[in-house]
């Protein structure tokens, strides 16, 4: 009896019902992987040590469906589409002032508590106000020169979600 179950599981009889189920599963998998949980491969070192180069993750599209991103949140930001996204951390939101002085991030004039930043840096950036509808995003790895690190403010409509782990 158990052998039959195992055999049926691995070698099912191809019936119309089976094909319909197979089609439904394929459509559901396609929809989930395209619209809900997008599999991503991390490339680059801008989020080290939180995320290593070459790591695998999944972008949860509805992470910010019910609330706006807050400082400390991780975000996946799209370019012209979702094939390539930037993984960064929100450090300031609309109306805030963000600045760097000797590698320390200042938000609204106060030094931000950033336990996720491990490597030291010496960035200096004059204060700038985050525009309405924007967030200020930076990578966790600030050991690279400021000119080579992609960071700054971006519109919230570019945020595609956040990694689930």
């Amino acid at each position: 009896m158990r052998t039959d179950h195992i055999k049926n599981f691995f070698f099912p009889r191809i019936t119309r019902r089976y094909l319909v189920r197979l089609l439904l599963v394929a459509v559901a998998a396609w929809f989930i992987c395209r619209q809900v949980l997008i599999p991503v491969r991390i490339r680059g070192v801008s989020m080290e040590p939180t995320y290593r180069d070459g790591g695998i993750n999944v972008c949860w599209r509805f992470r910010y469906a019910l609330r706006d991103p807050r400082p400390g949140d991780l975000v996946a930001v799209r370019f012209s589409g979702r094939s390539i996204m930037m993984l960064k951390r929100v450090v300031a939101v609309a109306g805030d002032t963000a600045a760097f002085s000797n590698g320390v991030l200042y938000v609204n004039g106060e030094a931000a508590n950033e336990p996720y930043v491990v490597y030291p840096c010496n960035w200096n950036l004059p204060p700038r106000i985050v525009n309405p509808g924007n967030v200020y995003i930076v990578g966790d790895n600030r050991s690279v020169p400021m000119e080579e690190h992609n960071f700054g403010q971006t519109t919230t409509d570019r945020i595609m979600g956040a990694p689930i782990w």
Partner: protein
Amino acid sequence: MVGKRWIAVCVVLAAAGASALLLSGGEKKRIEKRLTQLAGTVSKERGDTALNVALRVQRLPEFFDKPVRLHTQVYHMGGTLSPTEVASEIMRARAMFNTLKLDFYDVDIDVADRTSARLRLTARVTGRLSTSEAIDEVRELECLLRKVDGEWVFSECRAVAVLEK
């Protein structure tokens, strides 16, 4: 009689719509093919021969309009340039690499009429410089294409500011 006229009008409208869709789809395919050709011409594998370089120098200007306007400072390319100037700038940048790969992602094509189209895409340049430094640059680009002598050529290109420091 009136009913037949309405049917005829509907048939004509449907035929016009279908042909417009087909034509637009065909042009989109041609533009996608053009992008693939450009990516192939710019990309470089280890062991580029002199003949290969000469062929590319000859082929590259065919992708650009006379003149082409570049609103991007990637590799110091910017301003209004002739096709040969753009080609020589690309070849000069290309010479700095041991290996180079240009890829286009999330290409959104809007064919305005038969002679002009607007593109929005993500361009990714990966490779290794002669100094062994690895390069992985991503830019969102907005381009205007014009159809000249039956071929789509780049007339204008602008780098979209996804992040503003």
